[in-house]
């Protein structure tokens, strides 16, 4: 290495005429190609991700391991970043999910990919509107459209504040507490736009439901709500 540096310093500008151009040919380039393949693979395919993994685990272990959320007893109940199914009327429900046959499956992330003239999409949303109306008889105003549309990932952990508040009468009734107390929890959970400008205001559904349990007590029988279509075992 030292030799190279010396060479560089010793060479005054402008550089002497470079060697003649390489003749085109398979042999001329095959050796550098094989060696460059191995070298770049080791550098960018192994050393780089392993270095980043090491640093990430050291500096930001919570995020690096998937932002896992724990309940009061310290049990891991999900990832803060991923939606999970909530069927009980005492919990706020996330948007419907097209990830996997049952929805909310992190092994099958994705959207419905139904197009803007899809009959399937219209039928699915129509059924969803009916279900939401049935389960939320006291809700004010029309159903926010995000509650009948599946997200791009199927794991969208958020609701807009409006879509959360729309569910508020149902949650308060199921928990037998005044709406104002539930509303306070929701309002505390609202995250503003990033830097006051980027994205949309939102509420993380899992964190909101954990906060509900913490501040208002766990619902009597969490899984006893009216089952939505097709629950996984």
């Amino acid at each position, binding site marked *: 290495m030292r030799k190279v540096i010396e060479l560089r310093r010793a060479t005054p500008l402008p550089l002497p005429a470079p060697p003649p151009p390489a003749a085109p040919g398979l042999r001329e380039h095959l050796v550098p190609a094989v060696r460059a393949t191995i070298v770049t693979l080791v550098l960018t*395919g192994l050393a780089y991700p392993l270095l980043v993994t090491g640093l990430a685990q050291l500096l930001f272990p919570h995020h690096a391991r998937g932002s896992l959320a724990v309940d009061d007893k310290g049990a891991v109940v999900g990832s803060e970043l991923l939606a999970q199914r909530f069927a009980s009327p005492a919990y706020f429900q996330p948007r419907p999910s097209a990830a996997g046959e049952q929805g909310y499956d*992190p092994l099958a992330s994705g959207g419905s990919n139904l197009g803007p003239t899809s*009959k399937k999409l219209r039928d699915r949303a129509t059924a969803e509107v009916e279900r939401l109306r049935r389960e939320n008889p006291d809700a004010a105003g029309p159903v926010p459209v995000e509650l009948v549309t599946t997200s791009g990932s199927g794991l969208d952990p958020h609701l807009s504040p409006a879509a959360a508040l729309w569910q508020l009468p149902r949650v308060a009734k199921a928990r037998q507490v005044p709406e104002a107390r539930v509303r306070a929890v929701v309002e505390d959970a609202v995250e503003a736009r990033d830097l006051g400008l980027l994205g949309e205001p939102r509420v993380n559904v899992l964190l909101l439901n954990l906060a509900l349990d913490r501040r208002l007590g766990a619902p009597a029988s969490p899984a006893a709500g009216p089952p939505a279509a097709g629950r996984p075992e």
Partner: protein
Amino acid sequence: MTENGWLQIGLFALVVLAVTKPFGLYLHRVFEGERRPLPRVLGPLERALYRLCGVEPRREHDWKGYAFAMLIFSGLGVVVTYAIQRLQHVLPLNPQGLGPVAPDLAFNTAASFATNTNWQNYGGETTMSDLTQMAGLAWHNFTSAAVGIGVALALARGLTRHPGPGGARTLGNFWVDLVRSIVYVLLPASVVVALVLVALGVPQTLSAYRELTTLEGLKQVVALGPVASQEAIKELGTNGGGFFNANSAHPFENPTPLTNFLELVLIFSIPAALTYTYGKMARDTRQGWAVFAAMAVLFLAGVGIAYRAEAQANPALAGLACDHRAGNLEGKETRFGVAGSALFATVTTGTSCGAVNAMHDSFTPLGGLVPLLNIQLGEVIFGGVGAGLYAMLVMVILTVFIAGLMVGRTPEYLGKKIEAREMKLAMLYVLIFPLLVLVLSAWAAVAPYGASSLGNAGPHGLSEILYAYSSQAGNNGSAFAGLSGNTRFWNVTGALDMLAGRFLMIVPVLAIAGSMVGKKVVPAGPGTFPTNGATFTVLLIFVILIVGALTFFPALSLGPVLEHFAALHGRVF
């Protein structure tokens, strides 16, 4: 549409404008400067890589040598990634114990990543081991981006060098461009960006997937992996291959609006900066800005149309008793909203990135037309890393030629005459892309084994086919993902589409560079058409639009345009 939405789009445009010059200067120093940045830290690494690769950095290639090196290196890349996928079950770093990838899918994926396309006929979380993701796929994210930069530099050198009579007609050294791209640009930036992404919530681990019990007592398996390291280079190298099936819509790949903004800026950063680098190489930065301006106008028009379209109610849901004020949210994430999703879709398809933060298949007909048309215009709206600049320069040559015809003079660009040979090569370049897209789309549309993969009926089905072959030939990689591409027919035709769309187009580009480099420079006279002003930019935009529209308008009118009018009448299929 909201004021805030337009503000986000405007802020993004300003940030891109602000980074173009400083980053462009940096790139010029890296590739053309006598002294490269950070010589004490990165210099030794650069020299070590030359030694390990057995490369003499001062020996330059002519266009054929450059093309040979590029083709051999890329070909080896396809073979190695194919092998890693086929052998992942016996290789380390496979915590989930995933089996080997099927041959046709492995071929499609290897071609996809070697061509900077990152079309994905697989769901990452259930198909690829950590080793495959890192060494098989993310490796290509570096090298294929570096190849694109190299080809762009070679063409720029061909247009701007003045070797004089008897001078060497060389275009640079492929290996030097490759090594410098990685050492000075892609690798250091990726390390920093990856750590920022982790700080904002993106996972980075080699552990197995996490099984847990949800608050309501259900089982959920959380797929994890080295996501951040892949995410950083995926955007910076305009690759677009997601770690997860849902790509940048997945909260692990893109957890917040801030990461979304960062990813957007990363996608545009190198393609935008290279226009400035090009201007520096041409010794007239206005040449670079003229190209930048054409790209910017087309981008702003696209994002305006897409945002406006997506802010409307989804036509399939329009009759339902819902509050539609939030716009078309099918396939979109709450945290990004309609503005952040429309912006991402325009950025990712104007460049050949192909990452998605919303499902383009569920966009409104006109909202989905924008990404499709962006790809079909030839990936020139900033375009892929390097690929955008060389594609745009071919359009520039075409424009100069047409301008020359209009005034009846031999066209010249940067003082060099554009003659029959260059025009033939440019036309070859322009024709390969629609030939691939239209022939393959027609085949898939009439063959039962092609059309059976469709996820939507009616005109939208044709849009899915057109999008698939446009995206692959354009090396974009985003999809109307309702189409199930993991069949033998789609895997094989798609792989050939991608390989041809990359290498059959790069070779004419290098040939143009080779034929331009030795040309005599004629001083500009009163009859010279200036290529560094607004008139030229306007002409360039129209040439791009006319070439794209003439080629694809008939097909588009049977897909998105027909669907738009069907939707106006409330039709569903």
